[in-house]
């Protein structure tokens, strides 16, 4: 039987099918550059909170970084704050980043908010390359200091200090 030419074509095509030069190794150069934003801490305090003390303190666990993948690929964290100070007193807010033993890993710049400042904003970026310890972030402590003593007559229910914050986690390490 005569072997048709089409069979030669088939077998040639099978054996000689090819592709352009592909470089699969370039996957190694892939860098995850994602950034994730989450709300962090918010609160309202009134002058009544300071009746017996000039400083109030609160803290909480914060476990957003509690994963090996996140720790391994973290490049920086960014903290964003907004404060509305309706109080007629200056306020200092100190923010501490803690590890899981409540030891201070990093202290942010103290926020100094003047009385009646309703548009205070602050942003701080912590580079992991410089502050490796921040990878172990497991908690946050916020200390509020009121400038000057207050008396019972100063207390009113209306004016408050409103505090808002957000956390952005940036990745940027080659996989």
């Amino acid at each position: 039987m005569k072997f048709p030419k089409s069979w030669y074509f088939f077998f040639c095509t099978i054996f000689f099918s090819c592709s352009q030069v592909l470089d699969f190794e370039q996957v190694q150069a892939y860098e995850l550059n994602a950034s994730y934003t989450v709300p962090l801490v918010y609160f309202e305090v009134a002058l009544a909170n300071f009746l017996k003390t000039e400083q109030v303190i609160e803290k909480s666990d914060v476990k957003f970084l509690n994963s090996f993948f996140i720790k391994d690929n973290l490049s920086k964290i960014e903290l964003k704050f907004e404060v509305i100070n309706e109080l007629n007193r200056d306020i200092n807010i100190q923010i501490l980043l803690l590890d899981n033993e409540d030891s201070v890993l990093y202290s942010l710049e103290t926020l100094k908010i003047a009385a009646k400042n309703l548009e205070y904003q602050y942003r701080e970026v912590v580079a992991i390359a410089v502050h490796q310890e921040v990878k172990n972030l497991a908690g946050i402590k916020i200390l509020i200091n009121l400038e000057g003593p207050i008396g019972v007559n100063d207390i009113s229910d209306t004016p408050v200090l409103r505090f808002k914050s957000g956390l952005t986690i940036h990745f940027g390490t080659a996989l």
Partner: protein
Amino acid sequence: MKKSLFIFTLVFILNSNAQHKAVLYDFASLPQTLLINPGAEINYKSHFGVPLTSGWYGELGLSGFVLSDLFIANGVDINQKIATIASGISPNDNLKLNAQIEVLSAGYWRNRNTYLSVGFYQEFEAIIYFPNDLITLGIEGNSDYLSRVFELSQINFKADLLGVMHIGISKKINEKLTIGGRFKIYSSAMNITSTNNTGTFTTTLGSNNTYTSALAKVNLNVKSSGIYENDLLVTAPAVHLKNSFFGGNLGAGIDVGVTYHSTPQLQFSASLLDVGFVKHAKRIKNISATGSFNFEGLEFEYAAGMRDYWKELENSFEEQVRTSENQKSYISWRSAKLNAAIKYSYGEKRSIKCYDNSHKNVYKNAFGAQLYSIFRPLKQQFAFTGFYETSFSDAVHAKITYTIDDYSYANIGLGAAAQIRNINCYVILDNITKLLDVSKANNVSLQLGFNFIFN
């Protein structure tokens, strides 16, 4: 290394196993055409497939991008390539895989009008839709997409590994009409399905706090069988192979088909395949999550004393977004397929000897059109094919097809079948214009098989 291995495997499948059934449909009276249309006309007395080699079938489709978009060595940064691909794909784009190995195949004329065929094949079928919202969330995050609604409903995937035992009948009603049916028993070795999901994830500027993150109306589910046994991942291929032979997750289905000659030259044919289900009752692991959750942050209450805010957050999340795991049996439907074709034969007439020692006139050439459709989890997929078929002799046939489908607008396929004495063999190549550079193909394929045909 694992990534490279995965990609190598993908390319290997593309280059060696994938194929398109448009060429095989109603081609050269091959025994395998009975699996696509049980109402196909058979002219030989009997057939017997060479075990494990009578039908190798593989199909890989990739829509939205091709491998060369990602891996061509052109100096463009891989991060840029991935970003470009991610921005270009849609939730309808997908990766589909389908492979069949025919283990046994045989058939004979039970009487003058009835051709009986039986067989067993193993099949792997999978489709994974690309959830582009979640891909964007994964590779870019949400920071640049405040207020964007990330749709969790884009999670859609389905994969099956099963053995199929089948018995079919092709009944010649008269010279014009042949009808057929096939009954199938499915033995599922592995199934994983996640469809009909709902929910959104959104991060917006907040009122009480700087941002608010919200999971809304979440209803996610993944059903699986054969993947875990006693909470341990089944990794041994031998176990999956064993389970594909009546391993406990059984189902049933039917194929039906018809061929009708309105004139000696004009033929219509159609088939509906895999109308069936599998009841998964063993080695089940189902996971679901339902609920909504708004997260405004941790609300400190300086007057309240020490509270465990994080624990409260975790408890609140677990209360509002319920996750559960169970081993309840479930039913998965097979992906039904529809074929329809019109064929016009012409040219030189040739007389061939049929199974009943009668003679039948056939034409040397034919052309026509075919429609193929498969019911997928997200939407029905279609393929339209035009074809030309010719016979070089009684024993050597060829077919060329041009197909438009979701994966390609210009898919040219070629098939050839020959019979040397009682040995029949066939080779089918699909998307041949891309064979010189398979990395640019959305769909490339090869199919071949060997049968004994007796007449």
